[in-house]
Every structure is written in C-alpha cells, then in structure tokens.
C-alpha cells in the first residue's frame, strides 16, 4: 500500500535550529534518514518543501480566480516535506514516520493514498 508521510514542524521549536552546530546536526539527522529510507527501496517520491512564505493559494469561485499569498491553512506547524512510500501495511509506514527527525519535536501525518480508479473495460 502507498502512504504519504507528511512532516510537520513548528518553527517556534527552533526548527531548523538557529545555532550553526545544532543546524548541522539537524541536517545530519535528515541526511541519515533520507539515506536509510532511500536504500530500503520503499520510496516512490519525496521532497523537502520551500518554507510557507513561498506558498501561494489559488481558489476558483465561479469563474473568478482568487490568488492569495500564503499557505492554505495558516497554522503554527508547517509542512516541511513529504515522502510517498510503498509498504505492506500502516504499521510499517508508522515505523518509518517515527524514525524521521520531524517526529522528535513536530509530528508526522501518515495517510494512505487512494487506490487508482479501475481501468475502463
């Protein structure tokens, strides 16, 4: 089954750390995690995201296109990145989520991807 792991962190928790040594250690943890999950062969796709201040949200209301500066949900926690992984079950997806540095201070939302619709016959 495919799951999306969504990595959330609260910048108020000093993520990414201001201090250079701490920041390097933090990057190091992510590098180690990325290597481990990459080598396990479960990754379908994954990326870190640019910070929320780069986000733009679009809505269509009638035939009006409304473009707004900022993320869709204005929350303290920010979505910092994601992986889509293909694993046998939720338990394994949760195990990968728990290993991520985001789980230490923030949190990881794990959601199954919807099955593809059946091919038309």
């Amino acid at each position: 089954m495919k799951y999306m792991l969504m990595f959330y962190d609260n910048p108020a928790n000093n993520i990414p750390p201001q201090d250079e040594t701490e920041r390097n250690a933090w990057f190091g943890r992510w590098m180690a995690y990325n290597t481990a999950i990459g080598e396990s062969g479960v990754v379908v796709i994954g990326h870190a995201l640019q910070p929320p201040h780069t986000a733009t949200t679009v809505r269509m209301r009638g035939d009006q296109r409304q473009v707004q500066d900022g993320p869709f949900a204005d929350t303290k926690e920010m979505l910092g990145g994601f992986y889509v992984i293909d694993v046998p079950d939720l338990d394994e997806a949760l195990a990968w989520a728990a290993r991520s540095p985001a789980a230490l201070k923030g949190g990881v939302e794990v959601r199954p991807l919807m099955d593809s619709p059946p091919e038309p016959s």
Partner: protein
Amino acid sequence: MTQPSSPPDGIDAAQRIARHAYGRLVAWLAYQWRDVAAAEDAMGEALVKALERWPTQGVPDAPEAWLLTVAKRELLQTARRQRLHDSPEVQALYDGDETEALGFEIPDARLKLMFVCAHPAIDASIRTPLMLQTVLGIEAKQLATCMLVSPKAMAQRLVRVKLKIRDAGLRFEEPEADDLPERLHAVLEAVYAAYGLGWEAVDGGQAEIQDLRGEALFLGELLCSLLPHSAEAKGLRALMLFCQARERARFDASDSLIPLQLQNTALWDQTLLDQADALLAQAFQLSQSGPFQIEAAIQSAHCQRRHTSQVPWRGIAMLYGHLNSQWPTRGAQVAQAVALANCQDLEAAAQMLAALDPEAMRNYQPYWVWLWRTFTNWLASIRMRKPICSADSASLARQAPRLF
C-alpha cells in the same frame, strides 16, 4: 440436510446459531478479508438468507459452515462489483473453500481480531466498544448506554473506525513484541468489560447478554493458553473466576445485591475459588506487576473470609493503595476509601474521598451506595444535599462486579 422442520424450528435455529457463532464467524471473515464492516454486512445477509430458507428447507447439518459459505459468496460478489478480484484478500477466500466440508472447525480468529482492534492507530476510547461489537455482537445502542454517550454518536464512531481499518491498511498479523503489552491491556479491558456487561442481565434475562459472561470467561481462558507467559492474562482470568464463584451469593430473596463482605460464604463456589487462587499464584511467579493481578489479589483477600471469618481490610486497603498509585480508577479509589474506613482509619478515608473529583462521582452509583452504607453513622452529623440510594441493581453490578 435434515428433514424439513416446522418454520419456528428454522427461525429458532438461525437465532440460536447467530447468538453463539456470530462473533466467531464475523471475526474469521473480517480477519481474512481485512474489512470488519464488510464482514458484518456479509454475515447479516447470510443470516437473512438462513431465516428465509431454513424454515422450509430444514436446518443444514453444518449450519455454521453454511452461513460462512453464504457470507463468503456475498463478500466475493461485492468484491467483483468493486473489481477487486485480483486482490490477495479475495484469493484467500477462494483458498479457504474447505470450510464447506462437514465438521470443519472454523478457527477462532476472535482474539486476533481483538488485537487488531487494539491497534495504536485506533483511538483508545473506541477500542473496547469496537471489540465488543465486532467480536461479541453487542449492538451500538447498548454500548452507548454503558459508555454514557448517545447511541447515534456511538454508531457513527464505530462506522468511522471500521472505515479506517479498511482504508488505512492496519497490520492484521500478530503485533510486534514492543506493541504487545499495550495492546494486550486493551484486549483484557474489553474482555473484562464484556464480563461486566454479562452481569447486567442477571435480573433482566436477555439470554444473549447473559451468554456474554460465558464468552468472556472463554476468551480469558483462550488468552491464557495463547499467552502462557502473560501474568496479566492469568490475573484477569483469576479475577473473573473470583467474581463467578460468588454468583449464587450475590442476591437476597428480594433480588437485592448483597455486598461482598456480607455474602454467605457457604454459597461461594469453592472449586472456582481454588482455581482462581491457583491461577493468581502462577501469575505472581511470572513477576510482572499489573492491575488485573492486583484486582484479583483483592478478591482473593476478600475470599479469605471463608476460612477466617474476618475480612482483612488493612491488607485490602494496601492493595488498593498500590493499585491507585499506578493505575487509578474512580472505582478503586472509592473502594480504597471504604477499605480504610472499615479498618477504622476514618481520617485517611475522608482524605481520599475529599480528593476525588466530585464531577466524576456525581453519576457513579457505587460511590453513593458505598458512601451511604459505610458512612451512615459517620455522616449523620453532616447534612447531605442528596441522600441517594436508588441505584438499580443491574447497573451497579455492571459498574462494580468486584464489589458484589
């Protein structure tokens, strides 16, 4: 097939089998299919078909296998409609066709399914109702009454959690060793809750609910045999056997509950008490502390009265203190206060009672009943705002089977 029987026999048979086998059949299907809601729907359809056919065509020789076959066909048809025919779940059902053979014993998947229901990805507060509904067939309405929520809310929550089990891909295999203690505790809680629900029917007489006690005892035994190194499984079984042993002593001639310390010990079942004591001794040898073992030890202490004519209140108060220091519940807190009062430590008892959350106690009948019975004299000088002693026996017995 047997000879066609008269219509009521067919209906009776279907109802009887539904009552005895529903949980086992649903659990087996749900476990194979990994979809609790679909398994329940399919078994519902199978029971409808049984009620249509058995009265005219006779009850099959292997009625459970018949129901299972019909339910499996339902599941397969649904799957075909949803174009899932290549999935491993569907394949598993094709492979399982030997269940149609006469005398095939359907493996008991109830405990396995209970461990799935205790998955950490399922909200802790819905785990027990989910287990009770899925494995023991208790209706949402009744679960709602016990859990003090509206039937509609309970039904909605159960539907939602079954969708999550289906769609989120929860692991159905045995839990990892790390997960086991937490999940086991949830399973034990549900089995004990089923046992408590079984007491509710003592004066009401709904046969299917009375059966619950038997089911709970059976599941407790199964847990002990599947997990021989779990002290808590033994503790729970011992606790249920202690309660069960007192069955004949719990009511007086006018069907009022008799508190544990006033029961006629000659009416207690000595064989069951000896079994319970032996189990508890085995549990202690495993050196894993846990709430069910302490609860059982408290029962064991109460039952010493059959030999000594005395209730060892001091020891009981200490056991409750130990229980509340790690696993506090309002029932155990009230019981500790009562035990303290009974060994004349009124000051400590009063302190305990004063520390309890009044809001949590407001609707907790055992609290008021005990307060009333134990502190009548002591409270005489205090004007009680609400003297309450209108608790009905049934719900009292359910809320606090260990006290009666």
